[in-house]
């Protein structure tokens, strides 16, 4: 490993050291505030490091990792999400009596896992990243063990995730057995040069797809999503909905790109099938849901289905569209869960729709942000979600994937109903006066509001002037393709 490679890995090293720093701080009995600020600074440091190393990209660290433009985009997105989630976590945990300090260790470890996923080009690194992420999540979900049935949620996630890991591993083993390589490029090369036994390879891909679908909560492996979203603390839910999905999607994209997954008929069929049933199932499940966390879980099932439509073409446009979509989806969910966090009280999360009745009239800013977020989820213009959906449709129509595209359209119309349902609740008349019980550090309240405002500006900005984002993604991807083709 030369110094340039080391340099390329700098952001990830900083990220890894963040956990260590937190551990040390806890050992030094520092307060929640200090840990929070340190965590925030560490994340900023990661961003700085990424900025610093941008010139050495793309760079492969054989055989496990590759840091390229695509990885940079995904990691940047992940780190951004974690920055925001970290801010929200403070006000969420500050109210609760449990000791929140270890939470930060776990969240940074999980982030590291997701970040590793984005740069992995080898089964081993995929596996390590994924497990790092998963094991952190087990603990994170059940972190507030005394409420919200958090333990139940953690338990369910654990058993199912472990099972899906087993599938992933078995699938990997089969592919390895078939090709003799665990390196993505190696597998690809092997597939091109010599005849391989389709049965092993196909089964392996199938089993791996199961694991990926599970992590992305796609139908028919979606059943955990609602329960876990509901049981986990709100920032953790937010983390699952954004960071873990970005990481897994990143590795999916990289793997698919390497082995040209979309050139296999069976793979296209599976992905189309999963995408379609996810769009239909997710939206239908959400229609009557009254619990906003569950509702967002179902909505994210549907959204990941939309994302797969962008993934289906397997070309640059599709990947760009997918990245933009993930970007839009992430900031939208960050904003939505941010509001949920803000409204969650000492006793319970604000997950009942009733708690949102007349929110706009009580707190116009929060109401407006949540409204914009929901409109973005529904894909209404002026919001990032619309451009995202447009990009996905763009990619789908270009490849003439009529069936998924039509299903996308129909299901997003169905989906519109439940977003509108929440929105009209936000604007409904209200008699109930909700007591304000928070007395937090004004800096953090200001910070949280600031974060929400930033998200709002991003949501609208990416909806009205998406060029900057799209061009950014394009530029980074060009770097990414260079390494893959060299």
């Amino acid at each position, binding site marked *: 490993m030369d110094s340039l490679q080391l340099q390329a890995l700098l952001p990830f090293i900083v990220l890894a050291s963040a956990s260590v720093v937190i551990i040390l701080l806890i050992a030094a009995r520092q307060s929640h505030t200090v840990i929070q600020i340190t965590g925030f600074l560490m994340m900023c440091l990661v961003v700085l490091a990424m900025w610093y190393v941008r010139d050495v990209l793309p760079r492969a660290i054989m055989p496990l990792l590759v840091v390229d433009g695509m990885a940079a985009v995904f990691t940047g997105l992940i780190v951004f999400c974690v920055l925001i989630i970290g801010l929200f976590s403070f006000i969420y945990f500050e109210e609760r009596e449990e000791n929140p300090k270890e939470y930060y260790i776990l969240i940074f470890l999980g982030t590291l896992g997701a970040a590793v996923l984005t740069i992995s080009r080898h089964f081993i690194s995929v596996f390590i990243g994924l497990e790092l992420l998963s094991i952190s999540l087990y603990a994170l979900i059940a972190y507030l063990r005394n409420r919200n049935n958090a333990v139940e949620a953690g338990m369910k996630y654990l058993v199912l995730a472990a099972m899906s890991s087993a599938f992933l591993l078995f699938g990997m083993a089969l592919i390895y057995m078939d090709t003799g390589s665990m390196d993505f490029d190696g597998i690809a090369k092997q597939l091109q040069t010599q005849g391989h036994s389709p049965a092993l390879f196909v089964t392996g891909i199938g089993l791996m797809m199961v694991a990926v679908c599970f992590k992305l909560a796609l139908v028919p492996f979606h059943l955990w999503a609602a329960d876990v979203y509901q049981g986990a603390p709100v920032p953790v839910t937010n983390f699952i909905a954004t960071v873990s999905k970005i990481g897994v999607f990143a590795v999916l994209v990289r793997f698919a790109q390497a082995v040209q997954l979309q050139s296999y008929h069976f793979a296209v069929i599976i992905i189309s099938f999963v995408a379609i049933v996810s769009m239909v199932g997710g939206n239908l499940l959400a229609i009557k849901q009254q619990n906003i966390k569950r509702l967002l879980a179902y909505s994210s099932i549907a959204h990941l289905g939309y994302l797969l439509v962008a993934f289906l073409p397997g070309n640059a446009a599709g990947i760009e569209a997918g990245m933009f979509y993930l970007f839009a989806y992430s900031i939208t969910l960050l904003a939505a869960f941010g509001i949920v966090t803000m409204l969650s009280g000492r006793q319970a999360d604000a997950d009942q729709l009733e708690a949102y009745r007349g929110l706009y009239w009580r707190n116009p800013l929060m109401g407006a942000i949540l409204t914009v977020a929901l*409109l973005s989820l529904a894909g209404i213009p002026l919001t990032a979600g619309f451009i995202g959906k447009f990009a996905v449709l763009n990619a789908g*129509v270009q490849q003439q994937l009529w069936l998924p*595209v039509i299903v996308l359209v129909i299901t997003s*119309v169905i989906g519109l109903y439940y977003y*509108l349902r929440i929105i009209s609740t936000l604007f409904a008349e209200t008699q109930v006066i909700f007591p304000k019980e928070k007395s937090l550090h004004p800096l953090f309240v200001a910070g949280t509001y600031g974060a929400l405002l930033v998200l709002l500006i991003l949501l609208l900005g990416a909806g009205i002037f998406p060029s900057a984002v799209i061009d950014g993604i394009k530029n980074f991807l060009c770097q990414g393709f260079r390494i893959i083709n060299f």
Partner: protein
Amino acid sequence: MILVWMIVILLIGGLLCWLTARANEHAAKWVALVTMLIDAALICGVCFTQRVSSINTWIVDIKTQWIPAYGIGFHLAMDGLSMVMLLLTFFLGTLAVLCSWNEIKQRTGFYYFNLLCTLAGIAGVFVAMDLFLFYFFWEVMLVPMYFLIAIWGDTNRRYAAYKFFIFTQAGGLLMLIAILSLYFIHAAQSGVYSYDYFDLLNTTLQPSAARWIMMGFLVAFVIKLPMVPLHNWLPDAHSEAPTAGSLILAGLLLKTGAYGIMRFVLPLFPQAAEAIAWWAMLLAVIGIVYGAMLAFAQTDIKRLIAYTSVSHMGFVLLGIFSFNAVAMQGVVMQMITHGISTGALFVLAGMLKERLHTRDIESMGGLWSSLPAMGAVGMLFTMASLGLPMLGNFIAEFLVLMGAFTANVPLTVIATFGLVFSAIYSLRFVQKVFLGPSTFQKPLPDFSAREFVMMAALSIAIVWLGVYPQPVLDMVQHAVQAVVTK
């Protein structure tokens, strides 16, 4: 730049309303009124500085890049047709502000914000010459309209608002797919990625492709129009919306559908449109008769008027698909006069509701003696709605039918008998509301000065259009000719 300014002024005015209402609830309406008047003055200025009869080209044309990555431009342009529609928009918009004056007592700031945003969206639709931009405005006008219905509507407002949004969104997304398909076909042919209307006009399409793509556009437009059997959102939305909402819905929103067909469907897909002309005319005729029959059956005054819109817009569809200049001019006239006459009836219904606190015509009656001026105006607009000569609607329907007669005799004959039905429901309306024994004992106030000004403006407009429609006909002549000759 004048077009951009028109839209921007509306948006700024809307924001100002929102902000000023926090200081003073009454300030908002004055801000809104001034905004509308400025815009109305602008468009009148354009109208007078251009020599009206000689508009045979695009008067104002602004074209810049917006999202270059997708070939999306920001292209606004105006020809005679757009200009007429803009005149109508700002005329009715001003009235919408006026008729909300006393009706809206709560949350005025947000109300006027939404009102002006809706108008901005509508104005945008009429001048957008980039298909993506068109779609953008098309969707943008929905959200504030949704709020207008869902927040300030009547008892069943949420249901109506959902229905309105979901119906139009469903059509809109299909149109988006169609736009994308057209975009890619055009790109494949010319190598230029562009959503520009004038670029896409040069696309040559396979008949089958043209048919499908056209259907995508058409579905969106006929839902908005609305055409039976896709009209169901309309009665609910119209009857539940606040008065200004109904006015804008009936007066302007429906017109965007007709405008879309004239501007996009016919020029882009002339052959495909011709192929389905018979079916479109058939559905139009069904709409005319069916809407009239349902209007006759209603007891809710606003619902009744809403169904008359279904009937009247049938004439629009009939005229458009008869592909000749006479009918097409009639269609433009119908768009304007229907906007005025039905808008006036909705305003009238709003005034009645303000005084009687009911929309049920069974509980009205004999109001002419207590409200003579209102009775006279009501009679005037009912007569307009049943197509009495001397009033604008007659010109419109006469031209449409006369033009359509050259295209399809049997259907036009049936459509003409729709005039009998329109007489039946109109007279029932007058009789139930204004004639018969008086049911209200306490004295009711007749027009206030504000109401008088509104009704006078509408009455003068409708009579003027009936007696001297030539200026309007001249203004749109070239636009219509261009559509017809395609």
